[in-house]
């Protein structure tokens, strides 16, 4: 069914058709619309006997799902930013226990300074927790990824995050095709747990494991991720046969034929980058784009193949490893180890800053001219930074950084004296 719908509402609609049995919900922008809509659908009895649990924190939300998943229920929650970090301990635990929970991350910056807008800092912070991380380019892909996520998670007994850009996607109204429940049922069979808390067949789950076996348990989690690298292409192919559209996948090239420069990114900025690629191609600049759709596990082999023949790579990423630079670019550099080509790190869109086509074009021009600093911060206001650094050199009690920068940029009220 084709409808025009807000991203969050569309995700909630498709979630209902994935037949979750326990949903835990705690509000945080910008994911809240998803669970709000789900609460209505559960209350109306549209999702069978599904239980909707209003919890007291994100830590509790995921903990509820850990218990529910181990009891054989298909489970779901959504969170963002501080919420994901607040549940961090449970994020590692769910993966360590091998529980196939599906969680939407409405990607949002992590404070301080507090900021509700989009970047990828939140899911990046938990990238090594053992969850599969899928990133959606647009709302159609976001809903399709949720259907695939349950099947993937349950096939591997491994939790999956579906990452969609906060506001940019969650609050954007786009036309989407919502498959009907019967169609989803045919693709997504009922959940058959591999481990179960069952009074008629008791097992101990979550026992203490010492140095003698810990590495082996962890290795098996790694092994499941390696299996995901094979399974994801199979599932996306099956998805295409079933729903008649391409969605998801490890990574997807765009106009990479004869490309000399590859721009790599994740999430909704891919759309903007594609526009830039089109424009530069019209000017005969051989540039292409690669979307990383699955960030964990990192699809090294597939990416390495797509980068054959490319002589320069630019990674545009919405996150920052403070003191290092890029996070995704480090993975890309590892992917290209042994190949002597420059990999530029471009930090862009932090805290929701718009990534414009003109800035991206300029970035590519600068890269070709070997003028990109490493890492390169897109659209950074250097004047303000110089002023603030100078001020902090002169005054010991210089006060809070964020407030002074806001004042310098004149985006906040004047100083109270």
């Amino acid at each position, binding site marked *: 069914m084709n409808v025009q719908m807000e991203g969050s509402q569309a995700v909630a609609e498709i979630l209902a058709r994935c037949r979750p*049995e326990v949903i835990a919900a705690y509000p945080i922008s910008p994911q809240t619309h998803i669970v709000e809509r789900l609460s209505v659908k559960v209350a109306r009895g549209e999702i069978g006997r599904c239980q909707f649990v209003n919890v007291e924190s994100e830590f509790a939300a995921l903990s509820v799902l850990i*218990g529910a998943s181990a*009891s*054989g*229920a298909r489970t779901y929650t959504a969170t963002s930013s501080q919420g994901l970090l607040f549940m961090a301990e*449970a994020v590692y635990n769910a993966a360590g226990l091998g529980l196939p929970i599906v969680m939407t991350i409405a990607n949002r910056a992590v404070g301080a300074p507090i900021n509700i807008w989009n970047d990828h800092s939140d899911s990046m912070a938990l990238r090594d927790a053992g969850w599969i991380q899928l990133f959606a380019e647009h709302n159609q892909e976001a809903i399709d990824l949720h259907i695939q996520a349950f099947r993937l998670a349950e096939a591997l007994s491994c939790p999956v995050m579906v990452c969609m850009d906060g506001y940019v996607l969650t609050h954007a109204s786009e036309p989407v095709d919502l498959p009907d429940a019967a169609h989803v049922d045919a693709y997504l069979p009922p959940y058959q747990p591999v481990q179960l808390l069952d*009074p008629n067949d*008791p097992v101990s789950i979550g026992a*203490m494991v010492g140095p003698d076996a810990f590495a082996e348990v962890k290795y098996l989690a790694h092994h499941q991720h390696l299996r995901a690298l094979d399974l994801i292409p199979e599932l996306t192919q099956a998805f295409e046969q079933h729903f008649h559209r391409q969605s998801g996948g490890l990574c997807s090239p765009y106009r990479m034929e004869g490309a000399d420069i590859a721009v790599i990114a994740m999430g909704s900025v891919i759309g903007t980058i594609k526009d830039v690629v089109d424009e530069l191609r019209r000017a005969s600049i051989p540039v292409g784009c690669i979307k990383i759709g699955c960030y964990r596990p990192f699809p090294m082999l597939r990416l390495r193949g797509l980068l054959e023949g490319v002589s320069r790579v630019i990674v545009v990423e919405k996150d920052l490893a403070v003191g290092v630079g890029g996070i995704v670019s480090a993975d890309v550099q590892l992917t290209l180890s042994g190949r002597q080509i420059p990999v530029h790190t471009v930090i862009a869109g932090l805290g929701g800053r718009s990534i414009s086509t003109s800035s991206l074009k300029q970035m590519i021009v600068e890269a070709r001219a070997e003028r990109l600093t490493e890492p390169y911060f897109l659209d950074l206001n250097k004047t303000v930074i110089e002023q603030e650094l100078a001020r902090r050199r002169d005054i010991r009690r210089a006060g809070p950084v964020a407030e002074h920068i806001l004042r310098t940029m004149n985006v906040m009220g004047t100083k109270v004296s």
Partner: protein
Amino acid sequence: MSTERIKFYQTGTFTAGNRLLDEATRTVQSRVDRTNSLNSGHRACQGCGEALGARYALDAAMRASRNQLIAVNATGCLEVFSSPYPESSWQIPWMHSLFGNAPAVASGVAAALRAKGRDEVTVIAQGGDGATVDIGFGCLSGMFERNDDVLYLCYDNEAYMNTGIQRSGSTPPFARTNTTQVVADHPGNPVGTGKNLPRIAMAHGIPYVATASVADLHDLERKVTTAIGVQGARYLHIHVPCPLGWGSDPAHTMKVARLAVESGLFPLFEAECGTVVRSTPIRRKVPVERYLELQTRFKHLLGPPQDTNAIAAIQAIADANIVTYGLWG
């Protein structure tokens, strides 16, 4: 080697020797069909009150639920001494997730059972006092206020024993722990701190809150059985001496627990929907010194010289409990 005379009690006493009782009033633990939910072979210390309490509580819960039980465990002594592979002591479906989330995990188990229409299964969450009154308190309060169908068992040994005896929000005033040492003019754990979890549980208005002690295992079993028969969020706070952390003789666990009850320091009561409905009278009141003197964590109070102010303050707590809970039968 010192020896101690063992006394055998008869019917009508509060002790465990109940083979003379009629069938219906015998303890679950004395029955041949007890389930040994926490089986022998675990690694608890000698004289561990928590292992004793857990064994009685869970076997009673198994009987009351007709063996349809799932238990969730917080991180702590009980989890560590019972679970290392391949020697899990648990004969029941058992799950450990984290230190601070056992109530929420149990809520999730209950939600899944509801979704699947398996109403016959009872869910228990359990943890020590650190997991309950401190790190898991948020999740516990959430489970209470939602009135989730979970029975929470707190085994209170009044400090973080698994990590080596550090103060918790349940450590009594003046007790020495490794983070409330008796140095300079510090008399151990500061007086006027800590929280009373049974009262806080009652303030949530949940259907059933009770305290119990390994000093009275018959009463403990009865309260577990009562709690299993109630729907919604239920809380049972069980006093369990820790010989290691309290500096008591492992052979004196029952004695120490009994003196806590008989001095009035640990009142036994039951509350329904926020109101105390029953309490266990003290048969023979004993001064708090009798309780304190068996534990090296209070050694600094007993002297010489004796810290009479501190002992009077502890006695005042016991006396207040006796009034509050009507412990004079």
